[in-house]
């Protein structure tokens, strides 16, 4: 950055480059904004032609997402009397009554439990392994590291059959514990590789000083190395969380009801006639927002995270 006087682009070049990038960003953003917008449309507005840019916002989609409803004939509807709550009122307009809660909240809860559970496990195992790979002479180090990386190349479906059989015989199928273990294994390669990169950057002299002061290896590890690695651990954790959060293939193959996460659920939200798009969009929005926030927080470490630290920015 210091002296690029010769290569510094001119003002016109910057303006040209900037406007092209902004154009692309706007195109990228459109589908996302459309998802968020559709979540606040009424079912009629969602399928209007031409697509509506300006509409009266409603939370009907969100109500539909969290409830199950049935259509009731006119006379029965009258017999029910006035709707008592605002959400009852909202669905009553369509001639529909709320009959119960949908399974979205449950699925979302599963996503949270499995996502965070596997992330914690991944970080604990990954930090230990990364520390050992970074600091000690582990026999067959390069081979082990490559082995860890190669586990990521397998298509999930390729190992799904025996995992189904294995989980069934261990009583782990369709359980939180099973899915946490599975996602930990899936993300462990990322966790070890990333954390090794971060720990490599902490000067070894700090630990040596601690060891000379009479700390044991463990004390040096958790009193000296861990505090220095906190940013690295945090960004690794968020990457593990995002991958577990978004995973679909294993969730759809290995879970059926009890431990199913949100990604297989959202596409199955059906309304009175076909897919209930405002509800789907509402579910997608609730599900996407945390990831969007993390992405913005993470942007400095983004590149490392998605490339296993193979490229450093």
């Amino acid at each position, binding site marked *: 950055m210091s002296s690029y006087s010769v290569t510094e682009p001119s003002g016109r070049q910057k303006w040209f480059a900037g406007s092209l990038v902004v154009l692309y960003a706007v195109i990228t953003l459109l589908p996302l904004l459309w998802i968020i917008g559709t979540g606040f449309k009424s079912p009629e507005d969602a399928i209007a032609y031409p697509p509506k840019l300006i509409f009266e916002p409603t939370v009907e989609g969100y109500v539909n997402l969290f409830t199950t409803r049935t259509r009731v004939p006119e006379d029965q509807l009258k017999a029910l009397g006035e709707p008592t709550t605002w959400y009852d009122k909202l669905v009553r307009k369509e001639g529909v009554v709320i009959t119960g809660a949908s399974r979205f909240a449950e699925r979302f809860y599963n996503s949270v439990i499995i996502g965070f559970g596997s992330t914690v496990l991944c970080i604990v195992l990954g930090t230990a392994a990364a520390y050992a790979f970074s600091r000690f002479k582990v026999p067959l180090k390069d081979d082990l590291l490559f082995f860890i990386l190669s586990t990521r190349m397998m298509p999930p479906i390729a190992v799904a059959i025996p995992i189904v059989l294995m989980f069934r015989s261990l009583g782990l199928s369709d359980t939180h514990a099973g899915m946490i273990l599975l996602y930990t294994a899936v993300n462990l390669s990322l966790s070890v590789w990333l954390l090794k990169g971060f720990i490599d950057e902490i000067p070894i002299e700090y630990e040596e000083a601690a060891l000379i002061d009479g700390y044991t290896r*463990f004390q040096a590890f958790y009193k000296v190395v861990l505090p220095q690695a906190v940013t690295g651990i945090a960004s690794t954790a968020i990457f593990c969380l995002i991958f577990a959060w978004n995973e679909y293939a294993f969730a759809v193959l290995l879970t059926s009801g009890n431990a199913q996460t949100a990604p297989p659920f959202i596409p199955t939200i059906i309304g009175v006639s076909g897919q209930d798009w405002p509800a789907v969009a509402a579910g997608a929005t609730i599900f996407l927002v945390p990831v969007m926030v993390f992405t913005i927080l993470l942007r400095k470490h983004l590149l490392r995270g998605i490339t296993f630290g193979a490229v450093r920015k």
Partner: protein
Amino acid sequence: MLHSSIDRVASATPPAIAARVRGLSDRAIAWLFVAPSIVLLLAINIFPLIWTIRLSFTNFRVNRPNAPIEFVGLRNYLNILTDNDIWQSMQATAHFLIWTIVLQVLIGFSLAYLINKKFRGNDLWTTIIVLPMMLSPAVVGNFWTFLYQPQIGLFNYVVGFLTGNDPSSFSMIASTSLAPWAIVIVDTWMWTPFVMLICLAGLRSIPSSIYEAAECDRASKWRQFWTITIPMVLPFLMLAVLFRGIENFKMFDLVVQLTGGGPGSITELTSINLKRAAFEQWRTGYASAYAVILFVTVFGLASIYVKALNKVKQR
């Protein structure tokens, strides 16, 4: 946390052993730290893989656990390699792979090149561009079926508006000629930022002194681009292609939700085809052989590619 558990172990064990736990050698600590990860990966990756290989030589079916398991040798493999449907999904996968990589490299590199001009606010726009790849492919794929709806879908409407066609006259996911492109478009939308980020890292790694020297030698901008920029970014670009290649070879969630392999089986990529054989037709042995073939293919291609990558790096 680790320390306290070690303390607990130490206080619960007789003095002699406690002393040994406290004073573990570095080598023992290394093993203690690495072992849990290796054990987990062996249990949930390698063991199932070996099991898959074993099943691939049998006629086992998961939905008939009591039927006798026969070893059929290489029959499953022969059946797969002579099956037209499978060659068709290989073709669909190849089409998907080639076009997504070509488009993502072209657009991704151009974007990185432009962002590297350091205009005002580029950090903000870069973050926006990066958003799609952090989202759930299944959820995104499902929503894109809405965007692709004839008439009411945003995509059809915009394309119709720009080209002057009637937006209800074409359906990206119901037409055999357009469906393969429908998945290419969504994948490019999602993953171009990935290639862009890596190219950007490559561009930023080039020391500006090289350009200054070239400037002194009166090399034209065009020449500088081809003799400095491209060769210096190439290893990064190849790495991006490797990662995208592996990911798209395994592509499942996005396409399952977007087209479900249809219409017909025109977008049935290998992993969708494999899922069908394994979890809809329950031909476990056959599907296992298929899985092994796919794994060997991706592993083989990746190894050859990494060798080429290392050669480029050494230059």
